[in-house]
C-alpha cells in the first residue's frame, strides 16, 4: 500500500502552474449573478419598475425609528412583546440569492411567514443574550442587510431558508464575532463529531429532552485565532447554531487575535437552548 501511496504522490509532484485565478472566478460569478438578474427581470420596463420600487429603500437608508418594516403581530399582541426592528434592505443590491435549498428535512418546513419569524425570534434572542452573555460586553448588531442597527436582529435568507443574527461583541478593546442561525434540520445532518474538523475539540451529547448537542472548538494553527461553535438539534426539527470567533473580517474592526474568546462554550449552549429559538413555536 505504501508503494501505491508513494506512486500517487509522485504522479502529482510535477504539477504545472495552475490556470485558476480565484479573483477571476469571483468576478465571473458576480457577472453571472448580474446577468441572471437581468434575465429574470424580463424586459427593460420590468427592470425600470423594479429599480423605482427598490430605490427609495436604498437611498433613504434606515430611519431612527423602526418605520421600514411593519411589525407583525407576535406573542399576546401586547406592544411590550414586540421588538423594535430596524428596516431591512431587500433585495440585496449585489444580486439574486443562490438557488433555493431543497434538501430533505426531518420535519415539514415551517409555514410561519418570515416577517413574523424575524419578530418572534428577535424577541426571544435579545433577552437571552442579556441573560447569558458575560456582563460588561457591548453587543452591537451587525448585518449587511440591516445597516446602522445597534440592536441584534434576525434576518431571513430566502434561498437558504434560514434565520440568522450577527453581532459584534466588544469589551476593553477586544472584539469577537458572534452569530446565531436557525434552520430546519436536514435528514442527513450528522448528529455526532464525525465531520468535525478537529474531533479532539468536539463533543456530542443526547439531552434529556431528546435534543442532540454538538459542541466544537477549533484553534487555528497560529494559536491566535479560535472558533467555538454549538449546534443544538432540537427534537422538534430545528437546528440552532451559536458561534463565536476572533477571526479577522474584512470591512470591520479587527477582532482581537491572541486574546481568549469572551464567551464560553457553556454560555453558547445556554443561548442555543433558549426555549423561544425554534422554527416550530
Amino acid at each position, binding site marked *: *500500500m505504501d508503494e*501505491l*501511496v508513494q*506512486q*500517487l*504522490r*509522485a*504522479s*502529482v509532484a*510535477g*504539477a*504545472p502552474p*495552475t*490556470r*485558476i485565478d*480565484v*479573483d477571476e*472566478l*469571483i468576478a*465571473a*460569478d458576480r457577472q453571472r449573478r448580474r446577468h441572471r438578474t437581468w434575465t429574470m427581470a424580463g424586459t427593460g420596463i420590468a427592470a425600470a419598475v423594479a429599480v423605482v420600487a427598490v430605490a427609495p429603500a436604498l437611498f433613504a437608508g434606515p430611519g431612527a425609528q423602526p418605520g421600514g418594516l411593519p411589525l407583525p403581530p407576535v406573542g399576546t399582541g401586547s406592544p411590550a412583546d414586540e421588538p423594535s426592528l430596524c428596516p431591512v434592505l431587500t433585495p*440585496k443590491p*449585489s444580486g439574486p440569492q*443562490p*438557488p433555493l*435549498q431543497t434538501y430533505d428535512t426531518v420535519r415539514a418546513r415551517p409555514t410561519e411567514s418570515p416577517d413574523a419569524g424575524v419578530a418572534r425570534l428577535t424577541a426571544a434572542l435579545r433577552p437571552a443574550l442579556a441573560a447569558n452573555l458575560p456582563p460588561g460586553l457591548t453587543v452591537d448588531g451587525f448585518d*449587511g442587510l440591516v445597516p446602522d442597527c445597534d440592536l441584534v436582529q434576525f434576518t431571513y*435568507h430566502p434561498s*437558504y431558508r434560514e434565520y440568522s443574527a450577527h453581532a459584534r461583541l466588544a469589551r476593553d478593546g477586544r472584539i469577537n464575532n458572534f452569530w446565531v*442561525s436557525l434552520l430546519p434540520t436536514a435528514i442527513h445532518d*450528522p448528529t455526532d*463529531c*464525525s*465531520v*468535525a*474538523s478537529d474531533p479532539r475539540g*468536539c463533543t456530542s451529547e443526547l439531552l434529556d429532552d431528546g435534543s442532540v448537542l454538538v459542541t*466544537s472548538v477549533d484553534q487555528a494553527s497560529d494559536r491566535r485565532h479560535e472558533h467555538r*461553535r454549538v449546534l443544538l438539534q432540537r427534537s422538534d426539527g430545528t437546528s440552532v*447554531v451559536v*458561534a463565536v470567533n476572533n*477571526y479577522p*473580517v*474584512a*470591512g*470591520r474592526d479587527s477582532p482581537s487575535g491572541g486574546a481568549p474568546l469572551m464567551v464560553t462554550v457553556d454560555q453558547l449552549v445556554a443561548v442555543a437552548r433558549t426555549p423561544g429559538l425554534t422554527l416550530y413555536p
Partner: protein
Amino acid sequence: MAADTEGYREYVGARLEPLRHTAYLLCGDWHTADDLASTALVKLLRHWRRVSVMENPDAYLRRTLLRVWLDERRRPWRREAAWAQVPERPASAGGTEGTADRLTILALLAELPPRRRAVLVLRFFCDLSVEETARELGCTPGTVKSQSARAIEALRGRLVGASRGAEEVGTDG
C-alpha cells in the same frame, strides 16, 4: 458579501493545490483537472455562506469535486469511442524511471471504473478512512472495502502485465 468573499479567497488559497492534485488523479489530465477544480470552486462560492459555517468544508468541497467529475464523464464528448485497432502503448522504456512510473500508475488508474478509481484516490491519496470515504461516495463502508480490494487486485494484475510489456519492449529494442 465582502466578508464572505475574503473568507472564500483565504480558504481557496490554502486548498487549491491539493484540490487540483485530487482532480488530476481522478481525470488524468491537468487541463481537465483545472476545469474540474474551477467548476467545483464556483459551486463552492455559490454556497459559501452555508459551507463556511460547516464543521468540515473540506468534505463538502471534495464531494463537489467528485460529483463534478462524475457528471463531466457522462457528457457526450467525454464518452469513450470504439476503435477497430488497439492504440499504441506508451514506450515506458524511453523516459526516465520516474516518468514511466507516473505514466504507468495514471494509465492503470484510467482503466479502473470511475467509482473504483475514486475509492483509491480518496483512500490512498486523500488519506481518508473507510468510513469517511463511504460518506464521500454515498455508499456503505463494506462497499468501499470491496471496491478498494478489487481496485488494488486489478492494479496489481495490470502492474505485472505492464512490467512484462516493458521488458518485452526492452528486449525487442
